[in-house]
């Protein structure tokens, strides 16, 4: 049974992981030093969700993928120039913070509202995707709240695999403790999947896909509604970099035997 799915992927942008990050304190709360100058990338686990969505859509003709995102418009534009070359999707953009310090409950409210406004959304075909955690807040809370606002009570987190069974059920593998997966079967839609790494490599850039996507990406960015995040009721008493920088002992002149002995001794010590 092949269903043309409507796959809505939520994902934002994060600073390139190779950048050094430093917190600063603004009147509105904590932020990153030079936040708007830092090169940004699509949030990695949300990226996996997007690639999995595109892969699924390809296997089920008539399916469609939306990417719903909140971020500062100018940064979104930069990141979308790259992401748009990867897989086909329609962008729904909101102009707001992509900060890890932005309250996830408020972000979830804005995302849910934007999803509900997508014309022709059909719950019986709806798969809501996102990353299981962001690389900014790293909490894994936003998607659950979006799902709850949309009344989706079949939710999975840390997903590494989704298989559609012949009767149209979802077979989902979620990460659980100790390097294992829980296997679940879900017999109906809508469902929410917070993706971990999945199994797909990052798709290569495809300029043709890029050109097609850009037709909707640019207008979506121009239309992007501003979103105000008040961080209601939250106070950050402190935000600090870890104090400890280790005093590395660099061992260059020890024989292999001595190194091995030293390491074995170290491992054995309590």
């Amino acid at each position, binding site marked *: 049974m092949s269903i043309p799915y409507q796959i809505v992927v939520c994902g934002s942008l994060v600073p390139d*992981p*190779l950048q050094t990050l430093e*917190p600063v304190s603004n009147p509105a709360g904590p932020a990153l030093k030079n936040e708007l100058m830092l090169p940004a990338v699509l949030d*990695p*686990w949300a990226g996996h969700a997007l690639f999995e969505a595109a892969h699924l859509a390809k296997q089920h003709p008539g399916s469609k993928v939306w990417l719903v995102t909140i971020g500062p418009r100018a940064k979104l534009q930069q990141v979308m120039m790259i992401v748009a070359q990867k897989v086909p999707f329609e962008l729904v953009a909101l102009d707001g913070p992509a900060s890890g310090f932005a*309250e*996830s*409950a408020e972000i979830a409210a804005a995302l849910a509202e934007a999803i509900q406004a997508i014309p022709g959304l059909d719950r019986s075909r709806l798969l809501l995707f996102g990353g299981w955690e962001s*690389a*900014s*807040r*790293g*909490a*894994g*809370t936003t998607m*659950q*709240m979006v799902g709850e*606002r949309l009344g989706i*009570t*079949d939710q*999975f*987190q*840390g997903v*590494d695999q989704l298989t559609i069974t012949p009767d149209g059920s979802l*077979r989902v*593998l*979620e990460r*659980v*403790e*100790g*390097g*294992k997966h*829980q*296997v*679940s*079967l879900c*017999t*109906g839609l809508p469902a929410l999947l917070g993706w*971990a*790494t999945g199994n797909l*490599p990052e798709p290569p850039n495809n300029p043709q896909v890029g050109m097609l996507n850009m037709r909707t990406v640019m207008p979506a960015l121009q239309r992007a509604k501003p979103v105000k995040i008040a961080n209601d*009721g*939250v*106070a*950050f*008493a*402190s935000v*600090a*970099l*870890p104090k400890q920088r*280790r005093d*590395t*002992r660099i*061992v260059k002149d*020890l024989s*292999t035997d001595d*190194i091995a002995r030293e*390491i074995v001794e*170290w*491992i054995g010590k309590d």
Partner: protein
Amino acid sequence: METILFLAQTEANGSLGKAALEALSAAKALASDLAGSILIAGLVGGDVQVGADQISSCGAARFVAVAGPDFVPSRYSTDLVAAAALCTAASATIIVAPATSRWNRVLAGVSQRLDGRIDAHVTGTTVANGQPGITRWYYRQRMEAVVQRTRRPWFILLDPGCGEPWSGAVGTASVELVSAALTDAQRRTTVAGIQAPPADQQTIRPDAKLLFVAGAGWTKAQPDGKAHPEEAETLILGFLAATKASLGSSKSLVDLSGEGHAVLKFMTHLNQVGQTGSTPRHPKGLSTCCHGEEPHTVGWRFITERRAINLNPNCSWAQGKADVLYVADAFEVMRKINALLTARA
């Protein structure tokens, strides 16, 4: 003055696991440090009496539970109903639960349903000037914050390994069962089981004393101009067998494995440590053939003692990220280490 609900699931044998007992310690500390507060224990599971008895002397004013066969599986729809029912029955203002995969999946949904707020991956709780606070990391373990909130209910998911598990005398707890009615729609997901590698190929061991990290160097051309993936595999597996260490990997190495290269067959992306991998907790870590770049080492935030073996004296481990960097060939060193370990056994 807070009503603090300690929320936990019972394990297959009916008891409470270590992560749950750690969360209980934190909940108990909050209740005693916040004047006039009370502690309530809330359990979810098939049969909860064994678990309740296990913590009967923890000082909880009440024991509330949602129990029955529907609440055995770790499943969003039913855990949502159960947890919401317990929070309501307890009139909880602060909820402390262990950050197990089960509660991580659902507690933000519960928070939304009850119009509360949530902090996940919390590493500690504090009380300052009579106000509760939590510590947690942002940007994948790059910076640590202390967060306070005025909104209630406030849900706190405490990461395992961040505190001492509660222990105390086993007794008999009087449990109030709370009803949590389900519809058929809430049963349309069924848990079919757990998929795990065979025991001898299970390389992820969260309770191990040592994390052993392998990097992409293991698969690269060595001074003789050739790559030696077979020997790498033998050395790594030999070391893991002798030490029962947990195996971690850099992203580059798991990506190679994923692309079908004939390297380290036992390695999957579940082993990956770092920005887009895991942040395990072990007292010691040994890195081999891994450069120690920032997106990797953020995953070492909770590894206390760190050593690395790398051919390159200027690799990132040398920049204050390891306690000791051995500038050496990991193939040679690991051969010797395995020989020493075998001789000792």
